[in-house]
């Protein structure tokens, strides 16, 4: 570790006033200067924060965007959602790697660059996409763009000097209803709202029957009331902008085009529950939105909408800070998000207590999704009854769908809840769809026979993803891709998720002939059913509980894809005896034919 790295850490530590709760931010900002986080640097940061080295190492090793091994000066991460793959991301990754002379996951010998994959970057409607230094995104990759990128990386051109067009991110709004039509930033109107009694604001949200848009669909007003009623002098409001569910990108657009509405909603929530402190937990993949969001917050402070006596309401002191995540899907779970806000590993907490009782630093905390807060801003202006009049009896209001995959017009589509899948498919131009993954991998894989179903809490609930697969797609490979995602994103706390997600991947790899020597059989499919039951039978959090949803749905609706791959009559072990000898070959330095077993070729 050199003096420059120490100096970089020192500057960052001073900016965060050696606050151990800012550890994730400190690591992220330090790494932005040092490219990776060597162990001695982690120890230095630990000492400055009064933490142990192991604690800091544990945090650094948890987040996918922290690198504890040497990394290139420019880090290129290919978004690896299934929609990126459908657009050819794997071939482009191979092309870039071939041109650069590195393998995926490797760093150039000269330390110039590293190339790897990352989970979905939320750019599915304009992919394939990649992330550069966790700071820039490049959209609409194709062969020529990849070739030009290779030249720039080899020439060590800094990303700031790359063509600006590469970084273009479109909102892609295809169908706007109330939320995407937007709300004029209207300071006097918000001040008027904030002057109402807090309980009246809460009652309005209760009347709207607004349910959380993050996936679970918990009634917003009940969450707020529980927070408001919880004892304690300090409260928090957190906006969950950790839009990690693959295939979801609506919050990205709300944050970039309607940030004022989101902050309005947070401010209304703070007034209703009596909170002083607000956080936006912005996923690391959206780091590039940070400057513009900070600018909006600064303007709102100048307008008196944040800070002391916010909105001109005496005694209502409320401000919002933005924390940036570091690549961990599980942090979308509200208690894991709070752990991360507090500078720890994003492991979901033991509940009770729930965040509304004891959240950030033990304070009663409301965590709502970006879209929920956006809806609150509209409800506060137009009334709960108005919102309740949209949608269905159980699912009020509108919902934004992030449409991607095999369709003519990907992008954002907003409809009243209760809209059928068929209607959305018609609007986005997907006449040959065989399935839609509604709500992302943790949601439901809906086959064509069920396209008449409606997206609503009482039918097919959705957190906002809508990935379309036409008849050319192999749903087994889709499920295998999602299985890898969940195994990669498991926090590792509980046995069924930590081990079970890995066992699912291995079993699917065996069926795909991507691992071991044995062919699949009905036995392997039986084991998959069993793993599905196990993971649905009691994991620590929703990640584990939903990790087998794609497996379960595709087994049920596309079982043929599995049966086709189980060609063996009886169980065959996946042990590859020849591969088992690889360490012996390595030790003896032998590569000749005699050092290999004569094994039967797999089909």
């Amino acid at each position, binding site marked *: 570790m050199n003096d420059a790295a120490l100096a970089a850490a020192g500057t960052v530590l001073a900016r965060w006033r050696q606050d151990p709760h800012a550890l994730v931010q400190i690591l992220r900002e330090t790494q932005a200067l040092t490219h990776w986080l060597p162990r001695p640097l982690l120890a230095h940061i630990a000492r400055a924060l009064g933490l142990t080295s192991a604690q800091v190492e*544990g945090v650094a*090793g948890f987040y996918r965007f922290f690198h504890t091994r040497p990394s290139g000066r420019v880090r290129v991460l290919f978004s690896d959602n299934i929609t990126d793959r459908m657009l050819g991301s794997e071939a482009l990754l191979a092309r870039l790697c071939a041109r650069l002379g590195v393998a995926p996951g490797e760093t150039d010998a000269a330390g110039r660059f590293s190339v790897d994959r990352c989970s979905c970057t939320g750019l599915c409607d304009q992919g394939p996409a990649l992330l550069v230094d966790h700071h820039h995104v490049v959209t609409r990759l194709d062969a020529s763009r990849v070739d030009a990128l290779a030249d720039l990386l080899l020439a060590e051109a800094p990303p700031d000097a790359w063509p600006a067009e590469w970084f273009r991110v479109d909102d892609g709004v295809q169908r706007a209803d109330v939320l995407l039509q937007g709300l004029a930033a209207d300071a006097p109107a918000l001040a008027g709202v904030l002057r109402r009694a807090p309980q009246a604001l809460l009652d309005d949200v209760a009347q709207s029957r607004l349910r959380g848009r993050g996936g679970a669909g918990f009634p917003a007003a009940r969450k707020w009331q529980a927070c408001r009623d919880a004892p304690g002098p300090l409260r928090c409001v957190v906006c969950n902008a950790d839009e990690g569910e693959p295939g979801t990108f609506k919050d990205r657009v709300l944050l970039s085009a309607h940030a004022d509405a989101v902050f309005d909603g947070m401010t209304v929530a703070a007034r209703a529950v009596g909170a002083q402190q607000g956080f936006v937990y912005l996923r690391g993949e959206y780091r590039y939105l940070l400057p513009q969001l900070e600018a909006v917050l600064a303007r709102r402070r100048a307008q008196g909408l944040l800070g002391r006596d916010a909105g001109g309401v005496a005694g209502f002191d409320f401000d919002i800070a933005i924390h940036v995540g570091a690549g961990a899907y599980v942090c979308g779970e509200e208690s894991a998000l709070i752990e991360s806000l507090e500078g720890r590993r994003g492991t979901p907490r033991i509940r009770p207590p729930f965040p509304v009782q004891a959240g950030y630093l033990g304070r009663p905390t409301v965590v709502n999704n970006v879209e929920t807060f956006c809806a609150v801003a509209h409800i506060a202006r137009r009334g709960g009854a108005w919102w309740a009049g949209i949608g269905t009896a159980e699912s009020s209001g509108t919902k934004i769908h992030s449409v991607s995959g095999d369709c003519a017009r990907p992008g954002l589509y907003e409809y009243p809840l209760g809209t059928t899948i068929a209607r959305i498919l018609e609007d986005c131009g997907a006449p040959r769809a065989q399935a839609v993954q509604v709500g992302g991998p943790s949601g439901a894989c809906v086959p064509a026979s069920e396209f008449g179903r409606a997206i609503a809490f009482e039918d097919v609930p959705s957190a906002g993803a809508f990935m379309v697969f036409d008849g050319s797609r192999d749903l087994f490979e889709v499920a295998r891709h999602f299985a890898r995602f969940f195994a990669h994103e*498991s*926090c*590792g706390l509980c046995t*069924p998720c930590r081990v079970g997600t890995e066992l699912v991947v*291995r079993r699917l790899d065996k069926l795909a002939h991507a691992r071991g020597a044995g062919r699949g059989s009905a036995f392997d499919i039986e084991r998959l059913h069993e793993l599905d039951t196990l993971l649905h*039978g009691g994991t620590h959090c929703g990640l584990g509980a939903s990790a087998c949803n794609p497996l379960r749905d595709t087994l049920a609706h596309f079982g043929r894809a599995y049966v086709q791959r189980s060609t063996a009559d009886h169980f065959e072990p996946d042990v590859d005896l020849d591969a088992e000898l690889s360490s012996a070959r390595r030790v003896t330095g032998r590569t000749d034919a005699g050092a290999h077993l004569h094994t039967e070729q797999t089909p």
Partner: protein
Amino acid sequence: MSAAGRDDFFELDGQRVPLQPGDTILRAAARAGLDIPHLCWHPDVSASASCRLCTVLADDRPVAACVAPAVAGQKVECRTASLDTQRLRLLQMLFVEGNHFCPGCEKSGHCLLQAQAERAGMTDLHFEALNPERPVDASHPDVLFEPNRCILCQLCVRASDEMDGKHVFAIGGHGIATRLLIDSPSGRLGDSALSVDDRAAHICPVGALLPKRVGFAVPIGERPFDTEDTRG
């Protein structure tokens, strides 16, 4: 509140279990002398809810008994056929995740993982062994760290944090690569502040952390879990 009496009990597999304020299902059951199988829970430290062996159905909902509050009047099921199978599978998952060779392990007969597996009637691994490569850390003069046997129960982490006040251990990595970290400049136990007298050096339910030079002080066959009644 409901009728008197009902407020002070819940039902575990048909048996009335008295409860005290703040009780979890597992703690109340343990006080009543009723066994809910577990690995990562210990009465002296806070719960991590990691092993999930203690999963029970509380009013038909699966919960970890070690952290789920005991609720008066609740109907809790532990010994059902499907939960017994689930526990067996969780144990098999732990066995395939690490490298557990009971016949060669000094902990055999003292080992809670082995005992729970025997009680669950485990006779095979069921799943494919993951065969991880985990180097042994024998650097400490008095305590062996054998990560191949670690089941990530976090008891040593919590004992060091809460009872020893030393913070020798932490959890690192994620997913299947989750592992126990040791707080020392080298990352090895020998350079850490751990003393063989620490609670953390003795709380390991398996043979991952073992005091050195006491091997086979109690002969095989006379160890706590060697008796017939604990084998179920």
